[in-house]
């Protein structure tokens, strides 16, 4: 049997990789990809806790399903904004979005 801590370690590392992606990228889509990795890590956590502590309840899995739904909704709106903005400005680097500084 695989120990729970293995899953948690993988989830923690996945979360941190996503975290680094968000902080270090300039491109909006690349940042969004980092966020998706973080959400995956959270889901892995939730499902692993569910399996090892209360597999006869559904809370952990329901939570994971809702997180997936939210991630899909956010990705849809985020990419729509990205496309609209790209059409308008031709740039998608988040730190070139400098109309709003000062």
């Amino acid at each position: 049997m695989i120990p729970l801590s293995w899953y948690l370690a993988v989830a923690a590392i996945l979360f941190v990789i996503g975290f680094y992606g968000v902080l270090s990228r300039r491109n909006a889509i690349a940042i969004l990809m980092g966020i998706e990795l973080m959400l995956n890590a959270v889901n892995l956590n939730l499902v692993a806790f569910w399996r090892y502590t209360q597999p006869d309840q559904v809370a952990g899995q329901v939570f994971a399903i809702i997180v997936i739904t939210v991630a899909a909704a956010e990705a849809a709106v985020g990419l729509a904004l990205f496309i609209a903005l790209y059409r308008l400005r031709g740039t998608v680097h988040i730190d070139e979005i400098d109309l709003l500084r000062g």
Partner: protein
Amino acid sequence: MTLQDFMPILPEMVLLATAVAVLMVDTFLGDKRWLTWVGLVGVLLAGAATYWLALQPPADFQDMAASDAYTAFFRLVILVVTGLGLLMAMNWLEAHGEQQGEYNALLLLAAIGMTLMAAATHMLTLFVALELFSLCLYILAGFERERASSGEAALKYLLLGAFSSALFLYGIALVYAATGALTFAGIAQKASLSPLFLAGVGLLIVGFGFKVAAVPFHMWTPDVYQGAPTPVTAYMSVATKAAAFAAFVRLFVGTLGVEKSAWVPALAALAVLTMVVGNLAALSQHSLKRMLAYSSIAHAGYVLVGLAAANTTGTAAVLFYLLVYAFMNLGAFAVVIALERQGEGDVTLSQMRGLARTHPLLAAAMAIFMFSLTGVPPFAGFFGKLYLFQAAVQANLTWLAVIGVISSAVSAYYYLNVLVQIYMADPETPPTLAWRPVLGLATLVAVVFVVGIGLFPDFWLQLALGGMRVILG
């Protein structure tokens, strides 16, 4: 499950029906201005449902959402803000030729998320409600499609918001791991000071910090507030804060109250940083919207003082302040909307020059809002700050109250500077305003409440205290 079981979330169901009605009516109606009134009727009905529920004994919906005096207070705040938000947007949407149906429907959907934030007693409800209103606000922030800065604000808001949600979720997962519970009651029972639990709570604080724009999680605020369409900025600057603090207080003071010693120092530090940085940064702004963005950061700092006090008076003061802040900040933004030139999406301080000469009533309203935001008696803002700082002193956090008083003295400089521009300076080009009767109505309502709450603060404080007694037992 019977219909009776759904009563605790009746106001939300009314709001949902209204949102759908707005969308449906939109397709059949020629004169889109009616949509605002449809929305407003829905908000009033939801208000009536809230009042009716407040007379019933407290109830909860399957451990997911509670309907008690605390929820009722925040439902009231958010419904009033939503009503004013609908009114403030009406003339603006007309002038800009934007989609009225979608705007009003999204605003109502956001309101559902916000009221359920206040009602949530389960991490899952809390999270979905948070995401629901955040998502609606991301879309609304990008509503002015031909102005690039609006879309940029929306994208930035979405990325930072989703990032903070991920941190928040990881916090929930760790708390779930430490306690095995997702309901607030279950978490309160199993709460301990284990490193796992504390790490989870720390991540929850970071998540809330982003949502209420506390320093150092505030970097998105000025850009988003400046770029978003002004009616949206007005709405989110007050409604997001009310909703996020509602959940913040219920979760921390209510559920984690026993472990107070663990999180009070963190919140006190956040409060200091937020007040100081917010006020200092606001000093050097030329854009009115940016200035109000930093000022809203500073106000989040004042509210955090009450939260750090973590006693009955402190948290009641938080509720009272959020109510007061809603009116004074919405009012200030209403004036900004009135002054805004088509397609610019912003107003500079120099554009305010000589407003008193051309539009004395508008100038007087702005003066009342600025005095109230500064905290000058007898306006409502004074009592808000008074209660917050009093509570901090009671909780042996006198130093926090002192920093609060000093930083609000600093804030007087930039608030009063606006008045100097309005009353003393000569106009460069005399501001010409389009006649916007509905916007005027919204401004008038805000003025009445800022003055009214200032004259009779006790009534509203008792209401807030009633809400807090539910939380603290």
